């Protein structure tokens, strides 16, 4: 409805100082009769006259349309606002007024509203013009269309574009001339705005009809039974339009039979035999022949009716040209929409891939160097997230706490990783399966420990204000800022990691140990130290990933578990010992999960199932991942 606009006008007008308006007073005096009993046909000049008297006139009109106008016994008009009332002409408050409220009908109200909008959109104040346009965009009527077209040219280019758009949208819906509507549709074809699509939808709405001949309507298409138009739907249509008697449901049949039991038998057939559908049919037919039950359509009747009728989808919109143009515009919009959805999906996949990358990179390098899988890796992620949470409870400033939390999480999990390496993993050298199990023991201990310390309820890790919200390109493409930040973080770590591996002594030694531990040991590299450092580094990155994940997920003791399997998959798919492999694996897993999710949005569980199935099959073709490790270590 037009309420917001009226409220706006009211507020603006109320703000004006109360002053007499002789012109308005004169108009009211001359036309009091018509104001009290307006008629749709004749009210228009009067409304125009009132509107021309200035702000008081407009205020009166909006009150009138909003059914807030009353007339006193002595012929004064009062604007009633809740319990208070004031004189429509002078603006003076009238205490203890008991006016008779005016209740114009909807036709009159629409005339008034159009006049109001016309006044507003030609207002000299750009803010009021913008508000009027916004109001029209929300709730346009045919009256607005005329007003928009009659309005003087708009000077502000942004508002002009808005007005043009609003006019077109209204023209699509309300213009009496089909040619103008087609022109409006074609003018906007290719637009993917929600408003445009919403304007097209009613034009393309169809109803299904059954008829022996082609109906005189705008036919969208003729339906053939099968596919998206099942036989049951056709029969339902025929039943609905009275062509076919309702078919008998088994429950109806049973009830009808039960109602006609005579001496333990229905139509001569003993009740005990009625556990057979054929016997029930026979009994019902016998009853039908005797006239005891209403006749029901048989299969043959249904078949005949189906053969005798044709089925059509007809548009509610009568004009063929309009629907054709709308259909074409919708197709174009859908194509562009699909492209944009694809881009949006790509962005989602990218952000998911960054998360998997951050979570898996530590796992991949430790696996590459030591051939061990750290089952406690997920718990290091959790540890990082809890570090972020604790930091946030200590430092109130969100931005500062995040800046502190990232290196702190790295330090905490780096230390935990080094500790785990020194205490457990180095003692299990060359026993990868036992390492896997031992780190699993650490994992369940850490998980329970976290539960004991922080409780089972989820702890919030709140992002700073500048990371909240999302970057929106249009109605379709948008991505939350946190995910962009995580993407940037992943890029940063990719860069940092590449730098360490390619440009530092440590990286050189790590690569040497990865390729051939024995040979590098004989070259003076201490594999034990290198393994410890890589383990610490991998764990540290897990901690950072934990802070990042905690920003958008709930921090619980099971946080790591939710990401660990995906991280394993990333490593398995990507191949070990090579950061590009991890990147490729993360991109593949992230992209694929999003694509599967897109095709089956209601069922994320199925998406994960398919994902894992895909990986099992993928391993058939690339058993050592996308980028396999080469060299002697690979044969181990």
């Amino acid at each position: 409805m037009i309420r917001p606009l009226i409220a706006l006008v009211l507020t603006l007008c109320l703000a004006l100082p109360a002053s007499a308006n002789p012109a308005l007073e004169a108009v009211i005096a001359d036309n009091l009769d018509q104001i009290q009993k307006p008629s749709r046909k004749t009210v228009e000049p009067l409304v125009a006259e009132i509107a021309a008297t200035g702000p008081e006139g407009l205020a009166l009109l909006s009150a009138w349309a909003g059914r807030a106008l009353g007339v006193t016994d002595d012929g004064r008009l009062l604007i009633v606002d809740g319990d208070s009332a004031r004189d429509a002409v002078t603006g003076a408050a009238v205490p203890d007024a008991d006016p008779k409220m005016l209740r114009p009908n909807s036709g009159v109200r629409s005339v008034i509203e159009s006049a109001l909008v016309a006044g507003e959109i030609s207002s000299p104040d750009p803010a009021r013009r913008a508000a009027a346009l916004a109001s029209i965009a929300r709730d346009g009527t045919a009256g607005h269309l005329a007003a928009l077209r009659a309005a003087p040219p708009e000077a502000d280019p942004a508002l002009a574009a808005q007005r043009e758009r609003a006019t077109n949208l209204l023209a699509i819906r309300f213009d009496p001339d089909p040619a103008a509507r087609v022109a409006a549709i074609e003018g906007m074809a290719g637009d993917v705005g929600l408003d445009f699509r919403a304007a097209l939808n009613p034009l393309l709405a169809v109803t299904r009809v059954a008829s022996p001949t082609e109906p005189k309507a705008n036919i969208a298409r003729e339906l053939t039974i099968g596919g998206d138009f099942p036989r049951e739907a056709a029969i339902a249509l025929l039943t609905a339009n009275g062509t076919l008697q309702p078919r008998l449901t088994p429950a109806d049949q049973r009830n009808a039979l039960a109602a006609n039991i005579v001496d333990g038998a229905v139509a001569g057939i003993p009740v005990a035999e009625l556990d057979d559908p054929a016997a029930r049919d026979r009994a019902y037919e016998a009853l039908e022949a005797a006239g005891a039950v209403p006749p029901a359509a048989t299969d043959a009747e249904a078949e005949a009716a189906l053969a005798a009728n044709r089925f059509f989808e007809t548009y509610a919109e009568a004009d063929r040209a309009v629907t054709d143009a709308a259909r074409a515009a919708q197709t174009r919009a859908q194509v562009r929409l699909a492209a944009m959805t694809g881009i949006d999906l790509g962005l989602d996949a990218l952000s998911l891939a960054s998360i998997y990358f951050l979570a898996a990179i530590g796992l991949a390098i430790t696996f590459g160097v030591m051939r061990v899988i750290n089952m406690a890796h997920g718990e290091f992620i959790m540890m990082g997230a809890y570090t972020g949470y604790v930091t946030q409870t200590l430092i109130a400033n969100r931005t500062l706490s995040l800046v502190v939390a990232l290196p702190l999480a790295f330090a905490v999990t780096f230390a935990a990783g080094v500790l785990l390496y020194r205490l457990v993993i180095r003692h299990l050298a060359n026993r990868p399966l036992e390492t896997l199990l031992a780190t699993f023991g650490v994992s369940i201990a850490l998980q329970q420990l976290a539960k004991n310390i922080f409780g089972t309820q989820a702890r919030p890790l709140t992002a700073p204000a500048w990371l909240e919200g999302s970057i929106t390109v249009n109605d379709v493409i948008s991505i939350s800022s946190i995910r962009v930040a995580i993407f940037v973080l992943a890029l940063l770590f990719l860069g940092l990691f590449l730098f360490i591996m390619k440009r530092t002594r440590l990286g050189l030694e790590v690569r040497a140990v990865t390729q051939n531990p024995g040979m590098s040991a004989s070259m003076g590299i201490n594999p034990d130290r290198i393994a410890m450092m890589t383990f610490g580094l991998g764990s540290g990155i897990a901690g950072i990933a934990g802070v990042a994940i905690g920003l958008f997920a709930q921090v619980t003791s099971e946080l790591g578990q939710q990401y660990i399997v995906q991280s394993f998959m990333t490593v398995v798919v990507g191949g070990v010992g090579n950061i590009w492999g991890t990147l490729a694996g993360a991109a593949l897993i992230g992209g694929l999960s999003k694509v599967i999710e897109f095709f089956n949005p209601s069922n994320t569980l199925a998406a994960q199932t398919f994902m894992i199935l895909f990986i099992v099959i993928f391993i058939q073709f690339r058993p050592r991942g996308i980028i396999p490790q080469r060299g002697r270590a690979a044969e181990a």
Partner: protein
Amino acid sequence: MTRKPFILRNPSILIVLAVLALFTVAVTALSAAYGTGAIPTSMVKVLGKTLCLALAAVAMDLVWGYLGILSLGQMAFFALGGYMIGQWLMYARTEAIVAASMAGNPIPPTPQELQEGVANQIFGVVGSADLPLVWSFAHSLPLQLILVVAVPGLLALVFGWLAFRSRVNGVYLSILTQAMTLALALWLFQNDSGFRGNNGLSGLQNIPGLDGIDQATLSVWFLWASAAALGLAYVLAAWVVSGKFGSVIRAIRDDETRVRFLGYPVEGFKLAVFTLAAMLTAVAGALYYPQAGIINPAELMPIASIYLAVWVAIGGRGRLYGAIIGAVVVSLLSSWFTGGRAPAIHLPGYTVNWVDWWQVALGLGFVLVTLFAPKGIAGLFDRLSPPRRVPAPEPQAKEAQA
């Protein structure tokens, strides 16, 4: 020289069977149904379930301790066995209930109406009223019994074939098996998977056709069945790992490549043992869940399978009785400590509640076992028993490297 039958060569078989028989007789004599009632029915059920877990652990030991595959998806087979028997239990019972309620109708129900009623009763909770295709055989006990071993066996066969032929092994294979059970769990969690989603199958403790028999008696029967299954499986497993076949699979565990070079079809051996273990595990599951009464997809989550590996490791892998010891000791300890009956330890300033700290202790204890007692509890027996006088016919397999 004629060799003694494998049962005599391996004294552990007779010992295990004797202990099992003694245990069963003792529990029966103390049960409420057949004896003094010193052991409550719930405890009889716990013991029966523990025997099933021990059976699963024996199968796990076959795969891990003897074949060298750390399968982290064994509980998938266990739960699948449970689901298969659960289908019949639930269907048959619901059918009886629905038939009883429909008997009051003026018109006797048609078979189709009966089935619709059953489907409505079972699947109403997930908003469906149709019997899914996977329930096609649920009306028949013999068919479902076949499915108990056939479905997990087939899954193991297909999965194993895919994995072994592409030479996935070691840690990779462990992760893949984990992924398998996770995928299955996630699939079962869906409401439209045909297995009632998150609700799982319930009321399995009521055996259709045995309505007049109380739970106390049933629990003892299931204990007998579980003990018999465990005994048979133990003999079967011991037979499999003895003789030439056993030597080959241990050789595969110790150095797969060499066995392949010697001309053995490594994949075939692995597939055979993997599938056999899956079927044994499924039988264990089929006996377990009627005692547990309910099964839901959470039972398939990877953590359950990892626990199974933990039991076997603590008990001592590469020894079938070690698996039994591990499963029995750790699972009973776990339920005692997490059941809230273990006395809390009062330290100055803090009270250690075992409900909260058992997991921590278990995890750390497990790390310690891996580090300091890689042979597990069963390794202690080796120290107690005198060194063997007669060298074994085959060279003793060296301790597992992988």
